Each structure stands twice: as C-alpha cells, then as structure tokens.
C-alpha cells in the first residue's frame, strides 16, 4: 500500500508538470500578443514594449516557464491584465463557486446512479429495469443548457418552487464568512442556518442540470458491472450459505462491481470542474467557467494558466484518492497491478 501511494504520488507530480507545460505552451502558440490585447489597438509601441518587459514576455521561454512554476507554488499567481485584479483574488471568489456546484452535482449523480442500479439489480422487474434505463438515456441525450432553461421555466417561472437564475444567493444576502468559500459548508461552520438553506436552495437546479450527464454514464456503468457480477459463482455460493439476496447484493456484489464506477467518478469529477461553463451561463452562476472563457479570448495568460493548473491539481488529487479507495476495496490492486 505505501508503495502504491508513493508511485501514484510520483506519477501525479509528473502529470502536474505536464499539465503546467501544456497550459504554458498552449496559450503562447495561440495567435495574438498579450500586451497588445491588454492595452488595445491604439497603444503606442513603447507602451507595449514596456508592458512586455513588465509581464516578462521579453525573456526566453524556459525562463518564463520556470518563473511561472515558482510563482504557482508560492501562491503568486500574477494579475489579470484585462481585469486588473490579482488572479488569486479572482479565483478565490470564482473557483469555490464552481467547486461547490461540481460537488453537489457529483453527489447527486453518484447517489442517484447507485440507488437506481441497486434498485434494478434487486427488484429485477420490467419496471425497475426500464425506468432507470430510460432516465439514463434521457440524461445522456439531452443538451444541458436546454435542460437548464426548461428546469428554470418549470421550477421557477411556472411553479415558483426554485429561485431564478440569480447566482448562489438571493440578492441582498451576504456570503457567509467562512474559510472554504463553499457557501453551504461555510454557513454551517458559522452557524447561519438561513444562509445554508438559501445557498442549498439555489444549488438544486444548476446542480441537477450538471448532474444529468454523469448520472446517465455512471448508472449504465454500475448496472452493467452489477449484472456481470450477479452471474458470478461467488454470488451463488453466498446464497447457498443462506445469505439473503439483498445482503449478497450489498455486501458481496457491490464491492466487486463498484471499482470501475469509482475510477470513472474520478475522471467525471474533474470534468465537472472544467466543463460547467454552459450551466454556469444559464444560471448566472458566478463560477470560474465564464472567467476562464473570457481569459482565453483576451489571452489573459495568468488567469488561464492558473485555472488549468488548479483544475489539473484537483483532477490529480481526486484520482489519487480514487486509486487509494479502489486499492482499499480490492487487495489485488494494492501492489500496483492486477495479479492473476
């Protein structure tokens, strides 16, 4: 086990370096000049040259890369030249919004997929098989922004059950001052139940919209793996020992079937953080998606680089955790590879 963690940590660091290099190169090979874009079409050549020096763009690329890595590690993430604010400040408000949305969406997708797959596997009636299948097909097929708009029309306009697209909290309500930037958690930490309820209420529709696609995918994966496992001899033998069907399903089949779903979950969670731009736009969610899209368009190096690296870090840490959990479940994964 320690060997596995050490080797995964090492590959994680390499992957992080790779992500850093990719972010660094990708934005530099894109056409356009950052200094000119920042100052606009009417800036003098001298002004642009002096901004290039200030931004460090006159230095050789390897030196720029080294400075970028050093600065990232020390927390000096530079300034957004188009918005005129330090990147750390921009991301400090935006990234937690995206993270909180992603966490809730993932929790919804995973628990719904788990519940539906177990229900279908246990009941084995035409209804319990078909209903989740149809739901998953719908979830995989429907465009997220469309579902988001329809859910707003029904949930907000028609029924008035949910708040409109006003962001994370109702207008006029202050963010709970807490350490994490995740409003529901911060509100609980400082004991503001009203703020918690409001933040949670605002999360439901966007999180459900974002959860659709991963739900469909995770349900199908888990259901297929459970079906494979239920034919396994060890399930028959456990039943022959007098264990009930439900007990065999939960205690024997599920741990065997869930590992591919966990691995996929790690990948999906990373995608939720990076791919929620459309949903954020529909719900006016003040997340990092809009900020980064803007950053790409204006070649705002610091914003884009930092976001890519931050996403990569979250992605890599998530997958490291998934690997450890999978190895805790399956002893054959502990030595780093599958035996026999």
């Amino acid at each position, binding site marked *: 086990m320690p060997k596995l963690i050490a080797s995964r940590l090492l590959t994680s660091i390499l992957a992080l370096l790779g992500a850093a290099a990719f972010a660094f190169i990708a934005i530099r090979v894109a056409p356009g000049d950052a200094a000119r874009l920042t100052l606009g079409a009417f800036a003098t050549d001298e002004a642009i040259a002096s901004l290039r020096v200030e931004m460090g763009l006159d230095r050789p690329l390897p030196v720029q890369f080294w400075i970028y890595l050093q600065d990232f590690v020390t927390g000096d993430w530079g300034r957004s030249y188009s918005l005129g604010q330090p990147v750390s400040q921009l991301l400090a408000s935006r990234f937690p919004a995206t993270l909180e949305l992603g966490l809730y969406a993932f929790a919804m997708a995973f628990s719904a997929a788990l519940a539906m797959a177990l229900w279908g596997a246990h009941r084995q009636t035409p209804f319990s098989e078909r209903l989740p299948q149809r739901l998953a097909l719908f979830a995989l097929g429907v465009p997220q922004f469309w579902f988001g708009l329809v859910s707003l029309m029904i949930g907000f306009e028609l029924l008035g059950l949910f708040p409109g697209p006003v962001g994370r909290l109702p207008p006029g309500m202050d963010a709970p001052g807490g350490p994490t930037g995740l409003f529901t958690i911060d509100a609980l930490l400082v004991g503001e139940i009203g703020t918690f309820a409001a933040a949670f209420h605002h999360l439901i529709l966007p999180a459900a919209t974002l959860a659709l696609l991963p739900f469909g995918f995770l349900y199908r994966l888990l259901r297929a793996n459970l079906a494979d496992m239920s034919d396994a001899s*060890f399930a028959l033998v456990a039943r022959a020992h007098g264990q009930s069907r439900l007990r065999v399903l939960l205690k024997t089949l599920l741990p065997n079937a869930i590992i591919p779903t966990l691995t996929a979950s790690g990948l999906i969670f990373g995608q939720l953080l990076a791919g929620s731009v459309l949903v954020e736009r529909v719900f006016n969610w003040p997340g990092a998606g809009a900020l980064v899209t803007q950053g790409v368009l204006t070649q705002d190096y610091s914003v884009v680089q930092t976001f890519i690296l931050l996403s990569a870090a979250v992605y890599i840490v998530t997958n490291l955790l998934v690997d450890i959990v999978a190895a805790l479940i399956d002893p054959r994964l502990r030595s780093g590879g599958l035996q026999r």
Partner: protein
Amino acid sequence: MTALLEIKELSVRFGATAALRSISFNFAAGAQLVIVGESGSGKSTLGLSILGLLPRTAEVIGKVRFRGAELPVEDDRAMNRIRGDSIGFIHQDPMSAFSPVHTIGTHLFRAFRANHPGSTRREAEAAAIRLLDEVQISRARERLDHYPHQYSGGMLQRVMIAAALIGNPALLIADEPTTALDATTQASVLRVLANSVSDRGMSLMLITHDLGVVAEVATDVAVMYGGRLIQYLPIADLPAAAHPYTQALLKARPSFGRRGHRLPTIADLLPAGWDADA
C-alpha cells in the same frame, strides 16, 4: 431408515429446453449418494433445484420434501433458513466461488452468521478456525486474513467445504467438487470431504462425472442421462447393473489394467434397448 429427501416428479425447463424430466427418488438419511452422468445430463440442475437457487428463467414443477416437509422453494426467506443450516452446498470451481475483494475470514464469518443470527464476531471466528483445522488448513488464524488469490485451488476447495459445514447441515450437496483440481489435490480434497461427512454422520449428495469418485465414498449411485434418472441403486449392485447406459459408462472408464487400446465411447444415441419415453 426414514427418507431424508424425497423427490417426486421433479421437472425443470429453461424455455424450450427440458433440463430435468420427471425425476423421482427417495434418499435415506445417512446415505452417500453419488449422481453420475455426462455433462448436460441435469446433475447440477438437480442440486440447485433442491436449494431453490435456479435462475429465475427456470420453470420448476414437482415436489421436493426434506425431513418429511415440503421445501418452500418459492419462499426465499424460508429457504434462507434451510440453505447452509440444513442443506450445505459445495461449488465445482473453487477459483471463482470466492469474492476476490473479501478475506477468507469474511467469507466464513458471513456463512456462519447467516446460520447463527445474533452471534458475535468472536463466536464466528472461533467456528471458522475450528473448521479450517478440520479441513486441514494449517495456520488457520493467520490465514483468515488472507484473500482468495493468496490460496491455491485445493486450499480454496477445502475452505469451501469448511464454509458449507459451518451451519452443520444434515445434507451436503457437492457439485463436482474435484473437477477443477489436479489429480493429487483431488484425492486429498475428497478424503477431507469424506472424513467430515462420516464424522458428522451427514448425508452426502455428490455430483460427478468421474466414476472413480463413486467407489471412494458412495453407498448409492444414481445415473442420469438427458435429464432423466435412469438408475438408482446401492453401490454393491453397480457392477451387475442391468441398464445398458450404465454398463456403457462403466466400460468407458480408463484404467491402468487395460492399456494400449481405445476406450469405448458412448454414441450420441442411446444404446439399444433403452426406451427414451420410459
């Protein structure tokens, strides 16, 4: 002797395929019945239908009475109290009969707890160690924490015997317990099984296609063909068995005495003199 198991006109169909065709026999308490037959003759289906563990697609007609009462094969909860408790089961492939992500101890504890509701972990552990000793697994306490992939096939099959014995059943159904093992391991596993069965005075229903096994443990032999029970007789009568199929099975057995010539084979069609609708 009273009948432990009475099977009356038991038929099982999987869609259009008849796996068992109206099987009837009485099985006396303390008997050691060996059921022989080719692959596909319905031997395994017979074992699973007694346990009520056939796939859902199976249609079962007929009655199985155990200790004088009909088995409630439709009532899964009631059957859970009988499985493991009264009727034990040993699967043919030890390599796939254990969940790879659970320790051997976990398997044994769960089998124990299914038959001893409300028991403590300490009791389950004591029972597991006692049974592993019985099936001759050394360093039992330490090996409880090992996973199936750390065991050999022969050891796993002995653990499976231990798990089947943990509820102290009156009848043990062993479905080809030695097929997946090599010859030397087969002998030792069979010896462990035979010893446990005779020490406990249990009844054994051993399903096999290996007639060599018959002589070692059986008191009775049942011969199956094409889903039918074609003969049921005490072991002593086997050599003189009148049925042409049984004769053919016996002749098709390799032995050290007769080397150098081909073994007789059994044709697809039944030997002459056998009426398929009898």
